[in-house]
């Protein structure tokens, strides 16, 4: 319930309906039970996922093979691919496979993607082992970063529990924007998984200045997990803790990809969800996944002892 209501003031207001559904799960005396479903197995396709950012670093592309949904082995990485990223400034960055992790490709040299420049990815590999190289391509544009004025932590009480709400204060540029926000707590990224990416479009606050809630921390003694299961983890905040946010201005296509992954991952959501549908991709030639690029804007706040 707390998440549901607080979501109304949070960054992703426009996508809060799933929380309402989960709230209903809690109100109803719904129970879960194992069930086996039998489905056909779809043929394997290549899955490519990666990003280039304005960070000066070795950028990463992951290449793997899709599998039947209930396959009891992890999806395998694809080795031996020829991976390259080319910019619209005619710079080419080649990638090499990680020594120990099959399917992980890192750029040979560090580079930083530039705002306003287009980047295209090409992957060549004999995916179906027919002796002919298959080629997969994708392209992205790096949008200019959105600066965030400040980050604040404000205490509140919900259901008798002390909570700390993390607020982003910003001026949204006039054009249509889409955001991805990473929350780093004492050097650990809290939303590393795609299902926990914090995203929002600017539909509600287009071109305006204001503040939106990004994350909720608990007080020291509140270690239990959230009852609604929206976040399986809870993070306690202590005086002196450092919180960093990375606000990334992403393309609409990448926003849709994350949004669809989050909606489809757990299956159909009754009452508010729509029918199941395949997740969009920008990988050509029947591939799945996404290649993207964005600029990161960092803010930091240190949690202070309350008076």
């Amino acid at each position: 319930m707390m998440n549901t209501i607080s979501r109304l003031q949070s960054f992703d207001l426009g996508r809060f309906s799933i929380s309402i559904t989960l709230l209903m799960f809690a109100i109803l005396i719904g129970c879960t039970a194992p069930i086996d479903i039998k489905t056909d197995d779809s043929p394997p396709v290549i899955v490519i996922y990666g990003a280039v950012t304005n960070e000066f670093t070795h950028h990463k592309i992951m290449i793997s093979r899709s599998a039947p949904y209930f396959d009891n082995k992890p999806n395998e990485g694809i080795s031996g691919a020829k991976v390259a990223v080319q910019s619209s400034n005619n710079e080419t960055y080649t990638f090499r496979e990680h020594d120990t992790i099959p399917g992980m490709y890192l750029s040979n040299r560090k580079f930083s993607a530039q705002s306003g420049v287009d980047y295209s990815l090409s992957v060549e590999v004999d995916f179906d082992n027919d002796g002919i190289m298959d080629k997969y391509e994708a392209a992205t544009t790096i949008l200019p970063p959105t600066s965030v004025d400040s980050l604040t932590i404000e205490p509140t009480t919900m259901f008798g529990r002390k909570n700390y709400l993390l607020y982003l204060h910003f001026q949204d540029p006039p054009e249509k924007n889409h955001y991805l926000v990473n929350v780093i707590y004492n050097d650990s990224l809290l939303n590393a998984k795609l299902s926990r990416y914090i995203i929002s479009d600017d539909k509600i606050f287009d071109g305006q200045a204001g503040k939106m809630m990004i994350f909720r921390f608990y007080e020291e003694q509140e270690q239990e997990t959230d009852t609604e299961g929206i976040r399986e983890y809870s993070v306690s905040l202590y005086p002196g803790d450092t919180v960093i946010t990375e606000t990334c201005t992403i393309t609409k296509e990448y926003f849709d990809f994350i949004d669809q992954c989050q909606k489809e991952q757990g299956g159909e959501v009754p009452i508010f969800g729509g029918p199941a549908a395949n997740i969009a991709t920008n990988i050509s030639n029947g591939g799945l996944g996404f290649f993207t690029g964005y600029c990161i804007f960092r803010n930091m706040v240190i949690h202070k002892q309350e008076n």
Partner: protein
Amino acid sequence: MSIRLKTTYFLFGKNRKNFLHIFFVFMLSPLLSFSQARIMQGIITDSDSGEYLDGATVYIIENKVGTIADENGHYSISIPLGNCIVKFSHVGYESQDLVIRDNTSLKQNMKLKPAEFLQEIVVSSRKKDDNVTNTTMGVQRLSMEEIRLLPAIMGEVDILKTLQLLPGVQATSEISTGFSVRGGSPDQNLIVLDNTVVYNPGHQMGFFSAFNNDVISGIELYKGHFPFRHGGRLSSLLEVKTREMIPNRINATGGIGLISSRLMVEGPLGDKTTWIVAGRRTYADMFLAFAADENLRNSTLYFYDLNGKLTHRLSKTDKLELNIYNGLDKMGVSVGSFNYGNTASSLTWNHAFSKTLFGKFSAHFTDYNYQLGSNLNNMDVTWKSNISDWMLRADFHHPVSELWNLSYGISGTYHFFKPGDISFTGMGFNDYNITKTEALEYGIYLSNEQILTSRLSAKYGLRFSSFQNTGAFSHLYTGWEPGIGAVYKLTDNSSVKANYSHNSQYMQLANNSASGSPLDIWFSASSKVKPQEVDLYSLGYFHNLNDNMYEVSAESYYKNLKNVIDFREHSTLLLNNNLEDEIRTGTGKAYGIELMVKKNSGKLTGFVNYTVSRSERTIPEINKGKTYLAPYDKTHAINIVATYNMSKKVNMSLIWVFATGSPTTYPTGRFGINGEYFPVYSGRNEYRKPNYDRLDLSLNYIPKPNSKKKWKSEWNFSVYNVYNRKNPWTIIYQQNKDTGIPYTEMLYLFGIVPSVTYNFKF
């Protein structure tokens, strides 16, 4: 006579002349077969309570012709010259015969005495052989007497859930009050309470209906062939009617259940005025008061319904009626709230212009609204939305003769849509409002019901509708909605019927989940969204046995849908200023056969029905243009409903339900990113969820059935889902925490649920 009524556009095509010719031949044919007759008319009432007996029958034994009293107990029938015997009857009442001679007065009010054994289930409030003789097909009626005896989850007897036991009607999801008729969407059902539309008749996310049993007299469901006075929906019309009583003294009825209590009080106010006041409230939040957590103690979680009715008889020919309904769901905690509810009210003036012309003039208002609010650290966000209608209508019933039984009327409705207004306080943002729109909808109709020969009767008519919306995509639509039905009696107890009708729908819900939602957004036809249309053809065989004790019927239907609406894959329907961009339209068809056997009297009563059907859609941008199953397609459905009267004190009821699992889309593959798996799906609705089945039982115990005291009471014990079947509400995909391998779980709502309710009357 062969009649080819393909679509409304027939009227504008090269065959227009043929159509009009056929229409006018039908309308004028009564003039060609005029016979000598007198008109007898009057009012039929309950001799004890004075209640108007809606559906009482008047039958001329010599001619084997009859008529039915309207909702005000009015009847009007053509009497042959010479002597004859007229039989007045109504289910649950003792019949009375009246000998009519040439010099007998032609104004005959009749008071019928209630039959002694009222425990008998009344399956129909219409005349006994109505299902064989009535021209309309796909009509289902349930009286409250019948509904009250059936098992109910948590003891909350619910008319909308009972409705789902009828052939061709399916729940949208487990225990939901939302229903699908013959494979159509829930927003294709027009639900009216005393002729006022109720947009979202569900409480608690649709798990309870908005209709309080104590004030409802019964329901009628038309599965496609509507009476011409209503329109604007493709699948069905559900008419819910409140009580029509003229009590001699103040009466009260109520019940105390596990989750709610209710009370209805009615009484007279002088000779000419009667009133009803009723309320119902759940008390889940009262238990929260005992919660250990102080904040939970201050939480809100309940719904209530209030009904009021005032009837005033101005004169022998005039009656005024005021109906008011208000219902609200409230959920709230210290940091926010979620409220939603309906208001539906009407003022009706009934006037008898003459012995054969009755008019009804009414004004209606309906509103459905919801509001979400949050309050954190002195910052408020409020989200409000509503849809409201104002309607004026005039309807006339003009039973001139057996051959001229006319109905005609006109209606005008103003619709107002507020899809969502968000206001922020303390956050620095301006309010965010989705564009509000308005629309005007008009309907005008004329229909006639005639007995052509002793075996053949027909009903036919034409409705003209128009719809004009405002906003960026303003557009005017008009539509002709013809309908025709005929019944041919093979014998006194059996008949075949055929019906055709064409309906248009100008408004629909922006909701693409299979189950309903309180966050309703209705949107109208516009220059970007064409009205949905259906051509419905039905053919059926009806047979009553053993003096109408058993009713057997087989109905088949075929529906051809045009401009049927679905939504873009991954569409955003809430808070979207460009909703039109999310809509995809195509064609659809639905067909099926519904078999029903009913037993109307005796110790054991009830019905068994079986439906085999299919409902599909073809929309170019969805499922790569391949035809897919509609979400409510159920190949097979079986319902068994039985009540056994063991004694005057005890009766038992049983419900068994079976339905093929709903169509669904399952993942056939997966792709992985950062240790998480995401589904790769089959084509839309290529799989089905497990089949649904459930058994419910109930026992009604009346401690003192023969008591002469005013206070009368009974106990109802119900068990829902007796064999604890786990019917999946939804399938959830999970990943094993250790291995990361996906697996599935189902979420089911209820195992076995026993309940008890105490009902009283004084």
